[in-house]
């Protein structure tokens, strides 16, 4: 494109030059794509970033077409979705692509985040890329939450009711805040209308902006890789490019093209042959129109929210004692550790504040706090990991074990979040809630004493 491949067509070349003189077209293409040097050793886990982008485009395109037929009105919404499924040409396909896409968006993002945990992609100098990624994750959760109300089924309605009621748990302002969010005393037409506005324009705008910023930050520092070695340390003096780097285009564009095809194959398998996915992607109860007078016996969010929902439900008065003990231990450690007086004072103050809040706030509020913390705790990753190496390949057994326990906790909490709680299941959820947080809270400790191997100078 930029290197004279358009010479055959003089007219096209002239147009290109006209644009390029007024807009940094070829400069952008070069800096972001054709001369963006990426490590040559990307493995399986590196597909999910580009795949998440593919799903984003798919959601926007299918979403636009759904908006043409959907009615954001409590009296019409449910029937309008079925109208799309039955009467609109290919409406069923567009709707299934969108509903399957929602789940696959989270699958891609979770695997993409897991990749970062494997190879230390969140570490210096990529902290900002990671933070923007966490912001994308939060925005995506908001997008999914708002979108889930729109079909106006029983799960849509009661799921939204449960989540908005969480705001009501906040002391003093909670009740008013919940009414302000809903625009009504219960989830109703006003709520549906504003959630529609958030889902189709407000949140997607933020999401797109964050994705662009995420990519720009990544391209500023350069990509990490499975070895966690900085390729920019080995520049070829002849070319000025990293010795272990290859241009993103064409190498990774063709590789991601292949990955996208395999991904779409799996995607199509579900969208065409199991769009409900056994009740995980489209819940059975959501085929019953929303009824504010009939509370379903069992309310569960869609699978991608269930780990955090489990944390919420696991927070009982007993778990508050566990937090109190953890806070007390933290304060004890602050007292005995060496180091500056101000840091010690701050840590003691933080511990005391947690203890005071434990005394003041009931378990319900703490459930909301812990649920929020279970998502927001990712923010601190770049500063929690004290290991001298980035990649799990050169980290010791402690990090590997910690990560394995974390993944297990995430899956177990996810599973428990779909079940009707019993005493035993709540107890299991409490154990795994503690394990979930231990991955983060103990990370400064176990990563600094873990036995690591010396990473190679160059990619292996």
């Amino acid at each position, binding site marked *: 494109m930029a290197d004279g491949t358009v010479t055959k067509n003089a007219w096209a070349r002239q147009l290109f030059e006209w644009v390029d003189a007024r807009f940094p077209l070829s400069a952008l293409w070069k800096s972001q794509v054709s001369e963006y040097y990426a490590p*040559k*050793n990307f*493995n*399986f*886990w590196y*597909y999910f970033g580009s795949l998440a982008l593919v799903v984003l485009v798919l959601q926007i395109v299918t979403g636009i077409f759904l908006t043409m037929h959907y009615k954001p009105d409590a009296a019409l919404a449910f*029937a309008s979705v*079925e*109208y799309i*499924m*039955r*009467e609109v040409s290919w409406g*069923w*396909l567009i709707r*299934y692509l969108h509903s399957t896409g929602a789940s696959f968006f989270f699958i891609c993002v979770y*695997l993409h985040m*897991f990749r970062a945990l*494997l190879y230390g992609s969140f570490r210096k100098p990529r902290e900002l890329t990671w933070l923007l990624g966490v912001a994308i994750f939060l925005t995506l959760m908001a997008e999914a939450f708002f979108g889930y109300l729109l079909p106006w089924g029983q799960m849509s309605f009661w799921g939204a009711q449960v989540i908005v009621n969480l705001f009501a748990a906040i002391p003093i302002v909670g009740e008013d805040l919940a009414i302000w969010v809903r625009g009504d005393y219960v989830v109703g037409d006003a709520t549906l209308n504003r959630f529609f506005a958030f889902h189709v324009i407000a949140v997607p705008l933020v999401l797109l902006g964050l994705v662009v910023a995420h990519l720009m930050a990544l391209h500023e520092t350069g990509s990490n890789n*499975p*070895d966690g070695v900085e390729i920019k340390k080995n520049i070829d003096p002849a070319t000025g490019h990293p010795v272990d780097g*290859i241009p993103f285009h*064409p*190498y990774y564009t*063709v*590789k991601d*093209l*292949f990955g996208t*095809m*395999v991904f779409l*194959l799996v995607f*199509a*398998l579900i*969208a*065409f*042959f199991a*769009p*409900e996915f*056994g*009740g*995980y992607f489209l*819940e*059975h*109860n959501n*085929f*019953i*129109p929303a009824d504010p007078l009939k509370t379903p*016996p*069992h309310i*569960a969010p869609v*699978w991608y929210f269930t780990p955090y929902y489990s944390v919420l439900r696991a927070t009982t008065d007993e778990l508050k004692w566990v937090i109190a003990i953890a806070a007390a231990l933290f304060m004890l450690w602050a007292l005995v550790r060496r180091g500056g007086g101000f840091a010690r004072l701050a840590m003691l103050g933080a511990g005391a504040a947690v203890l005071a809040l434990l005394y003041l706030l009931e378990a319900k509020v703490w459930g909301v706090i812990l649920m929020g913390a279970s998502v927001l705790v990712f923010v601190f990753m770049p500063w929690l990991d004290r290991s001298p190496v980035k990649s799990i*390949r050169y980290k010791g057994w402690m990090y*590997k074990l910690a990560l394995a326990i974390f*993944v297990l906790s995430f*899956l177990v909490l*996810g*599973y428990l979040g*779909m*079940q*009707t709680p019993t005493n035993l299941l709540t107890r299991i959820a409490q154990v795994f809630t503690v394990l979930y947080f231990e991955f983060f809270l103990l990370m400064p400790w176990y990563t600094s004493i873990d036995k690591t191997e010396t990473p190679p100078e160059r990619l*292996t």
Partner: protein
Amino acid sequence: MSAQGRPESESRAPGREGTSTRPAVRFAAAALAAGALLVAAGPAAAASEGVKLDDISTEPADIASLQSGARTFVNFCLNCHSASLMRYNAMRGIGLTDDQIRDNLIFTAEKVGMPMAIAMTPRDAKEWFGATPPDLSVIARARGADWLYTYLRTFYRDASTPTGWNNLVYPNVGMPHVLWRLQGERALREEEVSKDGRPILGEDGKPRKVARFEQLSPGSQSTLAYDQTVYDLVNFLAWMGEPHQLERKRVGIWVLIGLALLAFLTYFLKRAYWKNVH
């Protein structure tokens, strides 16, 4: 280049195989296994009140069954229940012409292009039955075919309810046994199960009971024929829940073939470009 078809190791230089890929691959395998377990366990499905449901598989291509189900549906269900998200002539999807639909399945002045609505208002229905009969357009997707099939076959006489009928799957349901002339009247007898003269205890420590139906008066159909009637009806309800389901699978096959072809081509495209990367 080695290990064809394993994208995760394509770009690896020789000599590194199997050392550092292993943890990553193991994680992938573990994650997949966990995912499979989750699917096998299934979510907490529609509440079934503890009654074991009979397992059926619906057959959206069985035109004769669907047409028989459609007949039962308009004769018995479409008086109190609507299917307002369905047009009458959507039944062209089960092999009927507009004329056949108009002559055999519409008993009112409605046109074939109109939705399957009912004259009874929700307010009247609430007064007469205690609850508004739900619209049945997507009932099969909400309840599941197994639930409907079991529900429609487990009505029994119960003098204590307003309708004189009760149901094993949906206790104290407001709906009377509409198909009773076909099935006949039955009573529920609960019997304790015993083995070697001793009662078998359930999870709650009490003797476990099984429900057994006793035929009080014969219906116009044999048990076997009635089961078939209900199966056809449920089959129709399942089809009505998603009229495009056969088309979906038909299109899906071609999409998969096309994508498999593209995956194949792009794999070799990728290999050609990466020939010189070591």
